[in-house]
């Protein structure tokens, strides 16, 4: 009994555990029921999940800045970069030296424009990134006109699809991204500042944090990661098509929320995003194996994200009652932060208590 409540307490601080448990349970169930799941099929799932993980981490940084911020431009960033990479690299390893910097610069530029709109011009993040996404869609159409070859550079192809001792190289890249994010979120000054901004922006500003800079960096991280993933994804599928980034928009948000990052900001978990990405890909793969049509797959994904949010939201409502009720004057963002007070972020103050 004691250990059970201890686990509950621990799990409240380490919300990634639910996604991890979900992966294990679903995997075990599927392995037992069907015989089509094996370790080798797992590596396929891990490969797909790697792309989602990297994008999800970018989205996670944006979501953590609070006030409902979400980067809706990432699907367009992915697609555009896949095209631009094909155009600049032209299937030649020698051109990587141009292609990769171009992708990173493009990511930086898009992130900077998003940040300028959100921080500098105070356009709501969802609208700014949605509109930028449309602008990028036109850029993609223009890039599409210029396409002459869909050849992929061998090195990129290798990075995106080869395995190293059974483990896809992409998985290592994703793991690297997760580890770096864990360091940033838990042990760096930026991570603390990010959590502070997400919890209570006014207090963060008055504590001396340059809130605009913190938020801008989050948007830039998101765009750069989406850019790089776009290049690798193009290499993986061996080309590019106009809708290739589309599924990643909802999935990245789902990965973030399912992983235990708070949708109202202030607390993020990179490990959770990793496991939730695997879980989501596992669900999609299961549906494909079961022969569900693509329409049904869309429906299931939509239902999953709404359900997860509804459940997580209920948790927040329950926690709000004791601490938040006496603060009628608080703005919505502050109340939301206060409502989550029962849990410590998996990041910053982990070893406290």
């Amino acid at each position, binding site marked *: 009994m004691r250990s059970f409540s201890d686990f509950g307490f621990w799990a409240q601080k380490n919300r990634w555990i639910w996604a991890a448990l979900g992966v294990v349970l679903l995997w075990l169930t599927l392995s037992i029921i069907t015989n089509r799941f094996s370790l080798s099929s797992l590596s396929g799932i891990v490969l797909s999940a790697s792309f989602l993980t990297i994008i999800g981490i970018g989205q996670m940084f944006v979501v953590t800045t609070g006030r409902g911020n*979400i980067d809706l431009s990432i699907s367009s960033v992915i697609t555009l970069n896949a095209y631009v990479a094909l155009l600049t690299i032209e299937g030649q390893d020698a051109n990587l030296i141009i292609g990769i910097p171009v992708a990173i610069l493009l990511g930086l530029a898009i992130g900077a424009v998003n940040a300028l709109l959100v921080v500098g011009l*105070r*356009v709501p993040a969802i*609208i*700014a990134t949605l*509109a930028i996404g*449309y602008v990028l869609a036109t850029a993609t*159409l223009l890039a599409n006109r210029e396409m002459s070859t869909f050849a992929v550079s061998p090195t990129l192809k290798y990075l995106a699809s080869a395995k190293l001792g059974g483990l896809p190289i992409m998985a290592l890249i994703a793991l690297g991204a997760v580890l770096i994010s864990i360091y940033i979120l838990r*042990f*760096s*000054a930026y991570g*603390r*500042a990010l*959590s*502070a901004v997400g*919890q*209570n*922006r006014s*207090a*963060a500003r*008055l*504590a*001396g944090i340059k809130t605009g800079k913190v938020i801008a960096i989050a948007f830039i991280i998101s765009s750069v990661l989406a850019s790089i993933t776009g290049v690798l994804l193009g290499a993986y599928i061996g080309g590019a098509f106009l809708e290739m980034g589309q599924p990643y*928009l*909802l999935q990245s*948000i789902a990965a973030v929320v399912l992983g235990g990052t708070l*949708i*109202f900001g202030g607390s993020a978990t990179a490990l959770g995003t990793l496991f939730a990405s695997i879980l989501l890909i596992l669900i999609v793969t299961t549906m494909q194996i079961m022969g569900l*049509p*693509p*329409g*049904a797959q*869309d*429906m299931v*994904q*939509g*239902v*999953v*994200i*709404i359900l997860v*949010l*509804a459940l*997580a*939201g209920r948790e927040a409502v329950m926690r*709000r009652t004791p601490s938040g*009720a*006496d603060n*009628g004057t*608080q*703005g919505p963002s502050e109340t939301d*932060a*206060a409502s*989550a*007070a*029962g849990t*410590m972020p998996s990041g*910053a*103050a982990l070893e*406290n*208590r």
Partner: protein
Amino acid sequence: MLQSQTAPMVHPTTAGDAHMAVVKLDKIVKGFGPTLANANIDLLAMPGDVIGLVGGNGAGKSTLMKILCGVLSPTLGEISFGGETVKFSDYGALEAQNRGIRMVHQELSLCTNLSVAENFFIEASGETRPAPGWRSSHRMRARAALDAVFPGSGIDVDAKVGHLTIGERQMVEIARAATTPNVKLVVLDEPTSSLDQERSQQLRSYIRDTSKTGTAFIFISHKLQEVIDIASMVLVLRNGKMAWQGDAVEASIEKLVQLMGGDVGSIKHHDKVAATEAKDAIVRLTGDVTSFIGREIEIGRGEIVGLAGLEGSGQKELLHAIFQRNGKSSDVVRNEPVSFIAGDRQKEGVFPMWSVLANMSIGRIAQRSGLTAVSDKAERQAALEPAGHLQLDEARFDSNILELSGGNQQKALVARALVADTPIILLDDPTRGVDIATKQDFYRLCDDIAQAGRTLIWQTTEDAELLATDRVLVFADGKIVEELTGSEITEEAIVAASFAHQSGEKDVAEDKGSTFAKFARYLVDAAPFIGLAAVLITMISVNPIVASTFGLDLLLLPAVSLVLIAMAQMFVVGGSEIDLGVGAFAGLVSVLSATLLYDQPWLGGLAIVAAIAGYSCLGGLIQARKIPAIVVTLGASFIWIGIGYSLQPTPGGASPQWLSAMVNWSLFGLPTSIILIMIVTAITILIDRMPLGVVLRGFGNNAAAMTRSGWSSVRYGVIRYFIAALYAATAGCSLTAINTASDINSGNSFTLLSVAAVVMGGCALIGGIISPIGVAAGAVTLSLIGALLGMLNVSSDYNAATQGLVLIALLVLRSAVADRRNEP
């Protein structure tokens, strides 16, 4: 919905008073973590009583009133009405209102986007039917109420509350609560804070007259003279306990002050010889703020400088200007780093998810560059000494900050500044809600900090506190009007100075800037119409056929769908949400109408009804679970598209005859599309003018106030999305009718366009504004831009970018001319 029940006398045998009492609170205890906000408090309100409730900040007045009004549940205690005990588990805000309790809140609970009369409707809707002229009864009620409480106030009941001054809003709020039908007890929390002498008199004489007819009042005020003047009985709270209760005639200001614990003499005069000689000025004030006293003000190391004056005279602004160092021109010069200690801890101080230690160390961490490592061990080491100094126990470092009492949270914030080790510390009303003992510690501490060579600049609303400073700058109307030093600092001197230079006209600052800014705002408001005209003129000049009935119809028919979807989006945005699934939903209905509805009308109709029901539930879900609408509607868009794909994997289907006929008729030679757009706009205006529309707008403006007035956010969330669903579903049908086929992806592009149309039409994304004509014009303009690009031989590849850029340009323009007063 607010019919009052007369308290049934279930216990006629109960002794004397009890069954007559309006309400009786018995031994109320309320704890927040380790602190008791209320400890064993009794309160009895008989008909006709006027109870004066006084106490310092944090004495427990608001907690007690929240319990009385059903907003909070106490830890222990009982409540009874006319002798009938009610369980707190069954007692909520709505129940309190049904029993005739009304509260006028300090933070006003009016919807600023509604008229005065509409605000009266919100508070007591009675049996309002959506018939023409429904407003008139509320208008009359509002007029009568204002005239009864504040004769000659001259407030226009049709004026938007947002256009009234703060004082007028307070009058509306008071009149609304006091004249509610069947009200038995009115709680007034600092009702006169924004009223001038005459209005305050009027209010008191109204209370005096009305109490004679049996209505009870609870009057909370810091203005003790008013309390003694009006109250029949006074209850003094101190640190959550009852300090005194008695007849008002036995009370005097001195006595009450003493009972409240505010021993005026207890703040030791800070008699250290100020270190001003050491002319090492680290803050220098010049320019406008010093224009009245006509000389620069320099603040040196080791000084404690107080900023005083009536609330809102510019002290806070100066404090923030010093913090940001970005006063217009260089009015404020600061040469050293600075820390800020906020008194409004919940809003500006604490990070609620963090431990005490994390809260203390963030100030130090914020000074470092981003990738520097943070080690809790090092932070703990750094925090130990300052925390020890503050008597903040190390054992509490790992507790969540919210588990601490207000006083200890305050200590943690001071510790944050000390750990950050900045030479200048700014304090914004730092002792708000802190008990008197902690306050005394705090003043001593400030002294120590200053002795150590740090500079404290201290803004406070408690004049007595300023005795702890070396120098006081008194503000009036945004300027420093007096500088007091050493023994000149007395409460009398401060009060005298802040009143002496008051020009009286406090609301002048409401004037919204230059004529240029006004013109720019006007231009932005007219944007949809100017845009529409510009696009049409360009098109006609390129191709004159556009001007014909046929040409217009051809061009505008596709706009009908966008107008409908934009109206749907408008209602959602009116509730300060954004719907990212509205286009997909229209696409789904289009598919349903071209497949099921065509093949099996009954099944098709049922499917569309089910879709609308599902969509409406989203609105309820968002409200019930308090989850972000964007993500929910984005998730829902996948569901809509998924269903659509499953029904119809490739574009096709056919439009039912009757549906096509809907867009193929003509009247008086006018283009069908124009008539349709006008009908849609007219219906929307009608919905908005109905009581329902007013409620929906109220929710968009001030959801908390709406809930407090007894409206269910979940129910109106469902209704809001139901209305949106009807528009979007009609849009879906129109897509089928116009294209005579369906494609699940046909609606997708409408989502962004609908947001753009709503923004263009003049609705703020923050909610509360419904503007059907503007939105219709915006939607038509946006849908014509595509056609215009086509006529100009621009590739359709550029459509998406044009739409995106138009939206960004509109939002940037709006934010450029927007009024920034209320932003953090």
